[in-house]
């Protein structure tokens, strides 16, 4: 079968690629576009390591066909920081030591950003349930939840 031609925007950059009809967005990001910050932990939508924002909506990229992103706006972990300035979620993950091995971290960063985009003042309960789609095996989530709550506070205290 012929490859599909997809035009999309990734991290603000107009991007085009060819893909097989059955290729997932995760496979194209990693294998064709060298955006390896998005991780594969399961390929079944259960671990959240491949989280991206598709038109501002949090999705596991392993469950999205690459062809579906035609004419859409995509944000991956590589696009979360602005130039040399980290997103507050990234900064707070560093300050709180909210990562150990770090392989789940890109997914958590993207998911937490998506939460704070829509809810600038989440409770601990809301953070825990929003992040329930992201597995971390190292931290027990304690420092991750604290980092996200602290990032929310720091974002509220600085006018956008």
């Amino acid at each position, binding site marked *: 079968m012929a490859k599909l031609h997809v035009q999309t925007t990734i991290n603000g950059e107009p991007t085009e690629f060819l893909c097989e009809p059955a290729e997932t967005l995760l496979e194209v990001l990693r*294998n064709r576009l060298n955006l390896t910050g998005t991780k594969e932990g399961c390929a079944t939508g259960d671990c959240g390591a491949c989280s991206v924002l598709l038109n501002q909506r949090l999705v596991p990229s392993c469950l999205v066909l690459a062809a579906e992103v035609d004419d859409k706006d995509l944000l991956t972990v590589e696009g979360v920081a602005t130039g040399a300035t980290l997103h507050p979620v990234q900064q707070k993950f560093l300050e709180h030591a909210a*990562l150990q091995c770090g392989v789940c971290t890109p997914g958590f960063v993207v998911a937490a950003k998506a939460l704070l985009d829509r809810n600038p003042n989440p409770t601990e309960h809301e953070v825990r349930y929003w992040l*329930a789609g992201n597995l971390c095996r190292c931290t027990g989530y304690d420092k991750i939840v604290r980092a996200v709550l602290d990032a929310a506070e720091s974002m509220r205290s600085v006018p956008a």
Partner: protein
Amino acid sequence: MSERSFTYVGTRPIRHDGLDKVTGRANFGADFALPGMLYGHIVRSPHAHARILAIDTSAAEAMPGVKAVLTGREIPKTDAKIMMAEGGFDLGDMGDNLLAHDKALYQGHAVAAVAATSPEIARAAAERVVVTYERLAPVMNVDQAMAADAPILHEDLVTKGKPLPDAPKRTNVAMRMELRRGDIDKGFAESDLIVEHTFTTPMVHQGYIEPHACVARVGEDGQIVVWASTQGQFIVRDACAGILGVDAAKIKVIPSEIGGGFGGKIPVYLEPIAIVLARKAQRPVKLVMSRDDVFKASGPTSGTRVRMKIGVKQDGTIVAASASLYYEAGAYRGSPAGAGAMCCLASYKVPNFFIEAYDIVVNRPKVAAYRAPGSPSSTFATESVLDEIAHRLGLDPIELRLKNAASEGDQAPYGPKYGPIGLAQVLESAKNHPHWKAPLGPNQGRGIACGFWFNAGFNSSAVVSLSGDGSATVVTGNPDIGGTRVAQALMVSEELGIPVERVRPTVADTDSIGYNDLTGGSRVCYATGMAVIKAADDVRDQLRARAATIWNVKPEQVRWDAGRAVLVEGAGDQPPLTLNELAAKMAHTGGPIVGRAAVNPPMAGPGFAVNICDLEVDKETGVSRVTRFTAIQDVGKAIHPSFVEGQMQGGAAQGIGWALNEEYIYDEEGLMQNAGFLDYRMPVASDLPMIDTVIVEVPNPLHPYGVRGVGEVPIVPPLAAVANAMRDATGIRFTDLPLSPPRVLEALGHD
């Protein structure tokens, strides 16, 4: 040990590798690619136990895009071993596990491999490899394996250790060992109360989020380079060399960032296959496991059955204990039954005991290490029985444990006498913690449990090099799973007196640093840290010598003080020379300053922890959740307290998952029914509360800063702490994990 005051150790700087990890730049195992690289795919057995009669690879080889196909015939069995303090690795078994030779011994056992120009072609070619099997009856648990008419996995298996005199010669029992002290018959006769139960724990997986992955390249000259996600690049090198019969110097292993391991990324599963495929195809080959592969064909930890009997006096003093431990090894010998035996009574003074432990092969994946391997399951039994004793005697469970707690000078059940240990201190800390006295809500219960792990020393090398501007690099050979690089940088800072931001820590490949044993055994901060401190001291001594040259005095007349060379009292009145000044003069005072050290500490400081767990049980649904959890641990000295807390919290979460939800579920054919994160239920953020930590520091005299291993003890107490909380909440003593809703409902009398 005198109280040393620290400037940098004990602070919480941002880890050096953190930025790359929050931005997605860090390269993990599957992130690496080479030009012309092929993609490998493994053909795996669909049967739990089957003889391999024939493998026909011709259809796969004929497919366009397929560049190499490989079966076990091309990696002959070896009798080589890698020796390590914990007993080493049998490369014959590891090689047979890598690619089956005669029999497939579990569902998912690799039988062939292909390499092709795309993952899709490789997958399709793997489906065209025709394997003819003769199916055999599977043996799925220790009872089946020890039955009189049990199918035998390995006809040549011999029971090592102390087999019972009447044990059959054809057997699935790979090892039986005994530990004993005193006279248990007399001890039980003197006991006022004897409590005995039999406990089971399921096979569980480490659950690291990153699947195994590697890339191998073989040059025309036979030189091999492997990029791998591993807990030990030197283990990968030596295992590949031994299994393939290649000189270790021909293999260079470059470790990637590692996305979790917990013991599971110590064995090789892919690397030798990738090397042989790459050699056949003369192109680099990448192999990545799927999550399904990881569950079925990597190395989870043993399912166990443990009978535990403890006798006490009316006041709670332990008089005697006996235990029988049966651990599933998976397809090849080597469960952590022996470690389980050595750990199960290690927290207490027990004058009379007898422990027997069995290592039993079954048609499941060969177990690998999992965080304090062996200890959680046997400790679950001990700590549950002690809890029951406290209930029956009306004793406070902490007081009961304090009364029997092992302390300095006591002989450990596994032999040596304890040095300074912190068990009493962690128990006192628990007793005084607000959590212990906090009121409980309806349907809630509270449990406590202790845990022990040996911790390891082993071999480590480190190199510290000074730059002309006074900054420094520290190079070691241990993959950084949880913040060890920043800890090593802190140690260099402490010794040289320079800020941690001016120290660059690096994990080197096997060509670029001396031998290092793996990241495991809670040994990196302890043993590799010791090497780092010595290497930094080597730099410091050279700096003193350079200052002495400049001042024309003897080196012993110069001391090092907070980053400066200073003349000792009475040796003159030169102004101090700072590290920056001395570094700038290096080229004129003798050349580059490189400090090196290699260490081999035979012992480590044992670690003890206690957990307090509150559990709330929904008696309608059987669902239970942890509502409050406090982990208290003696860590000797916390180098970077945030990452020490992280180890304690992560171990607690894994232990809670083991206690409440996680288990390998097999059908009667020996096929796994839940090989995915949806059905193998690991804790998610909404399952857990914050996990409070209390760091207790009883310095370990074997380490210059007092460090003890930290990473493994945290997973030991939670199993019993959760079950004891369940006992408190429901009045029911659960002896089988996990405490899943159906099991809880059944025990509560619901259908």
